[in-house]
């Protein structure tokens, strides 16, 4: 028999990930623990680094467009939209309204799809098995619309610099409206599963609280910032496409906890449906491409443009030296920046809450690592 010893009661450092099911990819978090309480943490990232920004320098503007879809692969449409808009801004191209509304419809559907994926996996992480089946069922309908439109479900490459490559197919508007009618009651259905569920409340209320000031200091954007009560949405603040012509509300939370962020995203899905319906009403036949040359050759200059992706502010900074290749493309990924706030959000919580908080940040490692 070994001699009885007392276990060391000091700090314990454990590794979470990179192959952990609840980290949604290859995120490694080194946790410093006192028993089960988190004292501090350090994120180790880069496992999925593919050098997207370097690739950009070796491709021309058009060739690089499909690569951006591979960053946030659950919201490829918005990623692509951010990139093409940035190049259009650099070129000074105006889009025809049909292209704008099409982009908005697809981008808002993508926001719903991304939030659905988040909801399903987030609930699954916390222990609610049911929602994931429902959310994937509805997400499938959106992916079918994407597939009908451009042939791809995930990495869509739906837009082209200057507009769209494909015009809408005949039944597009009908299918989208059908989806909206079908989807709206489903959001209520998810809410009956979770919103007043006692276990859900226990696991999410007052978990991972981040104050508005901290959120801004750490550069957090998107639903996480709005969950902390900051009413800031780039679609409203600095509208792009035709977001200034549609009506929608920006939901905000009060406490900045996991539960509020959940409510914010649920409401955002409803608002997205609202935007989609307005766009479908306004879309009219017309050209789908603005005036761009066959060879994309922007003037010398630097532009920064950002859009409200499902995860937060997605920004592109493009430097042009006047040639057909970008001199530098910088991606400002929302997930990368939001993930930095993980440390202050998990301090003092239990290990089980770390999973909930990683889920509530809604990160995609493809975008964190690029």
């Amino acid at each position: 028999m070994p001699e009885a010893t007392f276990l060391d009661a000091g700090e314990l450092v454990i590794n979470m990930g990179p192959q952990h099911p609840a980290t949604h990819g290859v995120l490694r978090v080194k946790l410093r623990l006192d028993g089960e309480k988190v004292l501090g943490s350090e994120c180790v990232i880069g496992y999925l680094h593919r050098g997207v920004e370097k690739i950009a320098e070796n491709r021309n503007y058009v060739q690089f467009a499909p690569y951006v879809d591979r960053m946030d692969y659950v919201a490829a449409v918005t990623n692509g939209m951010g990139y093409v808009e940035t190049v259009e801004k650099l070129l000074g191209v105006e889009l025809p309204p049909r292209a704008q509304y099409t982009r908005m419809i697809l981008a808002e559907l993508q926001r719903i799809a991304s939030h659905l994926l988040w909801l399903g996996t987030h609930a699954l992480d916390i222990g609610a098995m049911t929602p994931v089946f429902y959310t994937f069922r509805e997400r499938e309908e959106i992916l079918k619309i994407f597939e009908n439109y451009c042939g791809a479900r995930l990495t869509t490459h739906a837009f082209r610099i200057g507009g769209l490559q494909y015009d809408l197919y005949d039944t597009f508007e009908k299918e989208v409206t059908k989806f909206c009618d079908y989807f709206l009651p489903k959001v209520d259905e998810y809410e009956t599963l979770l919103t007043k569920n006692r276990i859900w409340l226990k696991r999410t209320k007052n978990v991972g609280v981040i104050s508005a000031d901290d959120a801004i200091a750490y550069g957090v954007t998107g639903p996480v910032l709005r969950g902390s009560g900051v009413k800031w949405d780039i679609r409203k603040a600095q509208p792009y496409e035709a977001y200034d012509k549609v009506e929608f509300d920006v939901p905000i939370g009060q406490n900045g906890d996991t539960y509020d962020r959940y409510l914010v995203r649920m409401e955002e899905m409803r608002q997205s449906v609202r935007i989609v319906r307005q766009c479908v009403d306004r879309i009219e036949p017309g050209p789908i491409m603005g005036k761009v040359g066959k060879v994309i050759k922007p003037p010398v200059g630097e532009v920064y443009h950002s859009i409200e992706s499902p995860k937060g502010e997605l920004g592109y900074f493009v430097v042009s030296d006047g040639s057909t290749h970008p001199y530098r493309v910088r991606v400002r990924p929302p997930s990368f920046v939001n993930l930095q706030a993980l440390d202050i959000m998990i301090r003092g919580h239990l290990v089980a809450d770390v999973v909930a908080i990683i889920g509530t940040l809604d990160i995609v490692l493809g975008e964190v690592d690029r």
Partner: protein
Amino acid sequence: MADEPKVPPEGGASETPAKPAPAAGSPASASPQPAAAPPAKPAVPAKPAAPPAPKAPVKPDPWTSPLLDTLQKKFPGAVIEAVIFRNLPSVRVAKESLVPICEFLKSSEGGEYKLLTDHTAVDYPKREKRFDVIYHLYSFQRNDRLRVKVVLGENEKVPSVTGIWPTANWFEREVFDMFGIQYEGHPDLKRILMPDGWTGHPLRKDYDILRQDDNWVQSNLGIKSGQ
């Protein structure tokens, strides 16, 4: 692979910049694109590429704003250049006054640029001072963005802004990782995306991907080449 980008894919097509022959007819007739297209068909395929370019060269305009005046008054000589391009003002400041200027911009007097949206760098190896270090700021109060830029030489250090915006921490680590720019006063400056033992800084323009990659895979993965 490294020299690939320098060769324009459409050879002749992209070698016709704004000024030479094709531009002569087009600037007067900026709108009738179809008129410019037909003669192009029998001729060299170089011409269809020209119509988008022939407008007068787009250039950043000088930026004027009360905020800029205050900056110049408060930090005499620190603002080297102030331009606006595509609605985004850009201010180039002296490295020494970067931190005080950032502190000022964050204060209520300076426009409350509370959010450091993005921080990155651009490498121009042919320039005497090769790096542009770039900060994109956002002000909720003004609903306004501002770019602050510092020009930096090869072995110079730039002061860290983590004390002003905590979010700069990872941004600066990334810039260090990708460009090898050193920050003064950063709490924990180490690689973030590349593996710890990596040599070189990938986003520098003179970075040789093949050699670096081979060294690393040989010592870490035990295979001859990563290519």
